[in-house]
């Protein structure tokens, strides 16, 4: 009665962000918010209360005028693989509301399962997890632009970037309809990747030799955030500036220059 299940090689979706190209324009953030029904409030200036699945951080080199320099660093969820899928947040969730899939490498968050203990937020060093301190309210009429593909969250739950997993689901509908086995690289791209006007973000399967990210992650200037903690994140950054790469992790004073690592 039932046909064979979809048996395809496990994917490991990841991202490479070229910080040299990133202009800090924020289009990725807006695209992410629009894509994922992210709520907004009247005062969003306290960034510790503001929900931005993709947050663009501003890094400074700490030097004096005119040697000062800044660099923007977009920070989505890192979808940490940790050690064999044990990302910092997944294992701590008491209700299995967040999960790591060996099939896609995506760390999921199920808002209706989450009961808001916020342990995952304490566990995540990247601050990618956001709590809904308020019930979301859309001004009258604006709920028309809500996407049916992403659940609207209520007060009291944690939310975070999903690598636009619903886009994967939608893309798979077509793949199945057309009787194909595999998703093409460009069929599943995150909203931020698609929106980035500087083409700074590349997204794809880190396991797939044919995907752009596969090669980019081995770029000599590639690094990951807080790699030393063993989080094993799936978001890579590229920067030609040494000071930026050095801010990607913590180093003791006597530790040498950040050198490119092979991955």
């Amino acid at each position, binding site marked *: 009665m039932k046909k064979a299940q979809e048996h395809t090689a496990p994917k490991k979706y990841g991202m490479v962000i070229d910080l040299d190209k990133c*202009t800090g*324009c924020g289009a990725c953030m807006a*695209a992410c918010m629009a894509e994922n029904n*992210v709520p*907004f409030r009247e005062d969003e200036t306290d960034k510790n209360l503001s929900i931005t699945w993709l947050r663009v951080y*501003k890094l400074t080199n700490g030097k004096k005028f005119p040697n000062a320099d800044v660099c923007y660093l977009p920070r989505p969820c890192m979808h940490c693989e940790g050690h064999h899928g044990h990302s910092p947040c997944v294992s701590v969730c008491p209700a299995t509301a967040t999960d790591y899939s060996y099939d896609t490498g995506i760390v999921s968050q199920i808002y209706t399962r989450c009961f808001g203990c916020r342990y995952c937020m304490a566990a995540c060093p990247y601050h990618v997890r956001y709590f809904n301190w308020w019930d979301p309210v859309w001004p009258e009429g604006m709920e028309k632009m809500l996407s049916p593909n992403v659940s609207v969250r209520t007060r009291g739950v944690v939310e975070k970037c999903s690598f636009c997993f619903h886009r994967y689901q939608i893309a798979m509908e077509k793949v199945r309809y057309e009787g194909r086995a595999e998703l093409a690289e460009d069929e599943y791209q995150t909203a931020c990747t698609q929106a980035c006007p500087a083409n700074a973000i590349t997204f794809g399967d880190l396991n797939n030799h044919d995907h752009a990210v596969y090669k980019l992650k081995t770029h000599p200037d590639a690094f990951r955030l807080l790699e030393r903690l063993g989080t094993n994140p799936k978001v890579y950054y590229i920067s030609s500036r040494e000071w930026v790469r050095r801010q990607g992790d913590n180093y003791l004073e006597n530790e040498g220059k950040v050198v490119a690592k092979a991955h």
Partner: protein
Amino acid sequence: MNIARRSFLAFLIGGAAGTALSPLPWKLTDDLSIWTQTWPWTPVPPDGEYSYVNSVCTLCPGGCGITVRKVDNRAVKIEGMAGHPVNDGGICILGASGLQLLYGPRRVKAPMRRVGERGEGKWETISWDEAIAAAAEKLEGIRSAGNPQGVACMVGDRYGTVPSLFERFMTAYGSPNFMSDAAIEDSYRITLNLMHGKNAIPGFDAGNADFVVSFGSGVIEGWGSPVRMFLAHGKWKDENKTLVQVEPRLSNTAAKADKWVAVQPGTEAVLALSMAYVIIKENLYDKSFVAENAAAFEDWRDDEGKTYPGFKTFVLNGFSPADASKVTGVDPSLIVSLARSFAGAEKPLALCGRGKGNTPGSLHEFMAVHALNGLVGAINRPGGVWAIDVPDYVTWPKPGLDEAARAGLEKPRVDGADGGAYPYTESIISGFADGVNSGSAGYGVEALLVSGANPLYTLRDAQAVRKAFDSIGFVVSFSSYMDETAAQADLILPNHTYLERRQDVPAPFGLNMPVIGMSRPVVPPQFDTRQVGDSLMGIARKMGGSVGDAFGWESYEACLKETMGAAWETLEKDGILVKADYAPEGWGEAFNTPSKKFQFFTGAYRHGENKDLMSQMKIEGEAADFPLILIPYDSMRLASGPVADTPFMAKTIEEDVLIHDDVYVQVNPATAASLNLREGKVAELTTPVGKARVRVHLSEGIGEGVIALPTGLGHWANSKYIAGKGVNVNRLMSPVADPVSGLDAAWGIRAKLARA
């Protein structure tokens, strides 16, 4: 214990046991938890059929192609249109959040007439017939009283059918006071007019340049067609091309540039001319271009035999790196190396126009920078500046004029754009307020039509603009949103938003090919609004006579279709019309100056102000009273044109820009220390035209004595998500008329900062 009590206890225990064995507690617990998962007040967006509609974004002059994702009849997301010649799938933050304007809380939902005091926010909704009649009656009254010139009109964009309809209306009606929002495009147009002899807008083949010197242009902060420039920037990074940013402040562009040249503010032209000095002195310029296709490089003689110094003499006599260094603060050796690298590059390109380019600039500066392009021959060639003819598809016959119209059109303009002072300038929107307030035109302004512009917010010296508005008896706004100007209007005839209307979108600024786009209705009109072209035609027809006769089209769409002619079909189908095989005119044919050559030195320099060039451009205020210089800065995350930030954009405003309702002013730590100010402290910022409450943010990205405020804040009308936050920097600045163009060339203003 008595029996009754024990029986009751037994009843309770039995009840508890029974309840526990019934589904009630368990199902209730489960259902209550499900109730919390999607509360009754949590919106559940309905699913449906997905579709995509291509259109053009008109929120800025960038002209990006957009693809709007729809679920049944709802538009749910705006994405960049893949393969579009301008943006190829990319999108900016404003464009991406455009649906928040369409579905936003500040839409004007129907025609409205003011009932309370101006700006009080009391309106009555009226029918379209009433609204059209009210406008027509009032305008007819002014006209029949013999003062048609007393009606002024402000539009946002200069080109396209809608601005042309307004221009036509003003002509037929009999008023010379048709104005459009000014930006660097206007300064560039005059520059090309003077140096190329062309009525053209500049196109920058930026992606193909290999050494770009930007004189304060926010290449990645919204200058030109923003997404196009982002893509070019990405290409430079991929191909190891060089970007040098000349700017007093560490902008994002400066940070991303390969070299940031921290110049004294307002001295960019000096630096450009000093680079020219090195290039000429060291013979690094494009000899063939200069010799064969350029004029006034060497000293020259006019018909009467009088000798004039050429560009070479002019530059070599005053702009040595050593001298320029004193003014610009840039090390002479850096100027030399910069000039050498620029001239030595295969495809160098120099850009100017500060920040996003929302305000015009000093024409001398534009010409100085463009002369650099001329020196290296970066004109009409790959990687250079191309002169693209202004859109010319609006070719309607002139309207017939009656006596009243003819008389009115004879009158001087209120903004001072005509006559001898500024022969190259069509309109000077920044001069309007002064003209009204001083009555210099010799007649009063009785009515104002505003479409696509938000002058009360975007024009400098907001107090003077407000005063002018207050003196005008009848203000009609055609805005889709309750912006600052609409809030002060007497009558609002709301336009469809760009996602609900069909309208031509002329060439995006900076694109190096002639392109016409067309926006189309993505969703049906959400409210009782009307395409502004139809509203205007309705007024004209209601007025009748020669004014009505000037608009013979059945509707705006009929007008559009007729105007587009053969292009209509392509535009309907693709939303864009591209001349794919377009190539710029060769050097031999490119110039239409009297000499038919590239004019290094033009009449514009003969205003006896050559000496002033070797200094900081003029700004308002005295150094003694105002020891600091305040410069505005632009950010992609802050929409600073007629449209304000969407809620999504407001979310992205950085923590060093705004905290609650207070804006941060960027101050160098040394400056702050001298003023006894610390990080986060509240301070009072005073300029010759206004004062404001700000907070101090210490920044090493700005030099001593200079402070910076972001543009795009300080809205007072508009939605609660952006209104009431920060300060409108236009309120603290006043326009400075450029001596050549008359356009606002203010790049800053003197200021002081004190503890509050």
